[in-house]
């Protein structure tokens, strides 16, 4: 535990000195908030919670990139090898990625709330406990998913490509950027299997319907389940040396991290109400915005 904490502090410092990290973790989500609430929402304060929910989800999803890429870079540059001759184990190294991501994400969430409240005059705050729990479970889940990609890729380049592909799926097919009801039916059904959809869905429920941790149980359980599997598999597959390549079967092991979401997706397709909620949310935004729009 002690190793995890000192590594966490050190990695947070490094992250704060990394301009690219700051740009993507802080500036980009805030820019999304301004684009969503300011441009799409036309400054209508009743729609701000919808957009804030999406921006919060985007911020948490961003931990997928976070410090897992840094770990791949450390491996590639031979930095991890030096740590291997110390008592630090893979668990501490991986946990430090997740904890530093989490600690760095919390103030960004607070800043986003602050901006929504003071710049866009959002009236309510949603269910803060629900949001806190979602941020926590979401960061654990998405940071761990990032680690599992890092554990099966052999170079920075490969990591970046795979991360981009997955990131675009998360960004565009989960409702975080394009509202789900605007997507074709088969894409909406596919969204049922994406971890990001549950994060976005959960955030919307907490912001709009004041949903607390108990009513978000299934979402939270899937995220935590996925986080645990991803972490354990990533620890098993952890490599210190740039020369050690990931075995093929490692990719199969890595895929097992999405099992909770496959199960949840099957259940959601049959009994869930995520898509119904998404439609209702979208319609209410249109209604709120429409009420303010001038007649054409």
């Amino acid at each position, binding site marked *: 535990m002690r*190793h995890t904490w*000192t590594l966490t502090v050190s990695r947070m410092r*490094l992250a704060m000195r990394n301009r690219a990290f700051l740009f993507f973790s802080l500036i980009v989500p805030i820019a999304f908030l301004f684009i969503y609430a300011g441009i799409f929402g036309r400054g209508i304060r009743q729609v701000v919670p919808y957009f804030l929910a999406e921006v919060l989800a985007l911020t948490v999803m961003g931990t997928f990139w976070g410090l897992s890429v840094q770990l791949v870079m450390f491996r590639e540059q031979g930095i991890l090898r030096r740590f291997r001759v110390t*008592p630090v184990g893979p668990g501490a190294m991986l946990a430090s990625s997740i904890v530093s991501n989490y600690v760095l994400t919390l103030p960004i969430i607070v800043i986003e709330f602050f901006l929504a409240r003071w710049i866009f005059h959002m009236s309510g705050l949603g269910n803060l406990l629900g949001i806190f729990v979602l941020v926590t479970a979401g960061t654990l889940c998405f940071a761990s998913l990032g680690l599992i990609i890092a554990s099966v890729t052999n170079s920075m380049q490969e990591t970046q490509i795979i991360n981009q592909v997955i990131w675009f799926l998360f960004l565009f097919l989960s409702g975080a950027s394009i509202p789900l009801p605007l997507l074709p039916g088969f894409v909406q059904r596919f969204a049922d299997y994406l971890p990001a959809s549950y994060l976005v869905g959960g955030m919307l429920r907490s912001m709009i319907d004041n949903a607390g941790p108990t009513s978000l149980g299934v979402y939270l359980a899937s995220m935590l389940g996925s986080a645990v599997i991803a972490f354990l598999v990533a620890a098993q597959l952890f490599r210190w040396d740039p020369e050690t390549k990931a075995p093929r079967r490692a990719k199969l092991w890595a895929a097992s991290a999405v099992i909770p979401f496959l199960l949840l997706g099957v259940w959601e397709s049959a009994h869930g109400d995520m898509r119904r909620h998404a439609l209702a949310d979208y319609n209410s935004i249109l209604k709120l915005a429409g009420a303010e729009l001038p007649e054409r």
Partner: protein
Amino acid sequence: MSAPVIEAENLIKRYGDVIALRGVSFAVSEGEVFGLLGPNGAGKTSTVEILEGLRTADAGRVSVCGLDPQHSGPEFKYAIGAALQSTALPDKMRVREALELFASFYPRRRDTEELLKRFGLEDKRNAFYSHLSGGQKQRLALALALVNEPRVVFLDEPTAGLDPQVRREIYDIIEELKKEKKTILLTTHYIEEAERLCDRVAIVDHGNVIALGTPRELKERSGGVTRITVRLAKPETNGALSMLEGVSECRTEVDDYLLYSTRVPRTIVALVKHLEEQDNELVSLEISAPTLEDIFLELTGRRLRD
């Protein structure tokens, strides 16, 4: 001699079709500075990395402080300190932060300030790793190897690629460690490093230990051959010089002729006579005891840095 602190027995290591180690064996006693001397690719780093627990041997047995590097818990890591062949740290990590971070991993640790002072890094304490010179990076690597007061220190090519002045600074540091009675295993392809620092040396070539002993023992083992370095006014043919009395071998090196002789006075007399006959002149002559380089040459027929 006390019980060995480092033991390597019949180490074999393959990388695909390449056999890096073909049965390397040696033992290092407490407080000894032991050198693995050999050219690049001889198997020095593979040996050290097996001892550090970074690699596994395909066959053979290793023990460091009585522990198996692969199957011991943190107590093995507590006992060793290592400067890898290329220690890399994150670019934006400050010198002081690196020392504090690595020290935090161990129950027993050295004072950061003392290490900064000792390794001449006080002025650089707040410098980013990427802003350090090669020598400063290497000094930091050595300081990191000592943060935990290790019983055994592994130094893999500690001076490779450094300029002579920085190299001498590193020698001074290692000599200080020697005074502290640390057990040190260092690899090098610099003869002077092995001669100056090591109590005992194992000469490694093609994954084998081809000679092992104190630098003096190794030199004596060369059969009392002395090197006579001569420079002549006009070029000579090797063949003629190697026919001189007492000369076992003759080599050319830039403008010099290296004569390896078992009977120095007779060789010199024969040389002067030969030069007179050839109407040649002696520009300079130097007689030196054999170096480890000569031993390596004698054993392998190649120079260390060929």
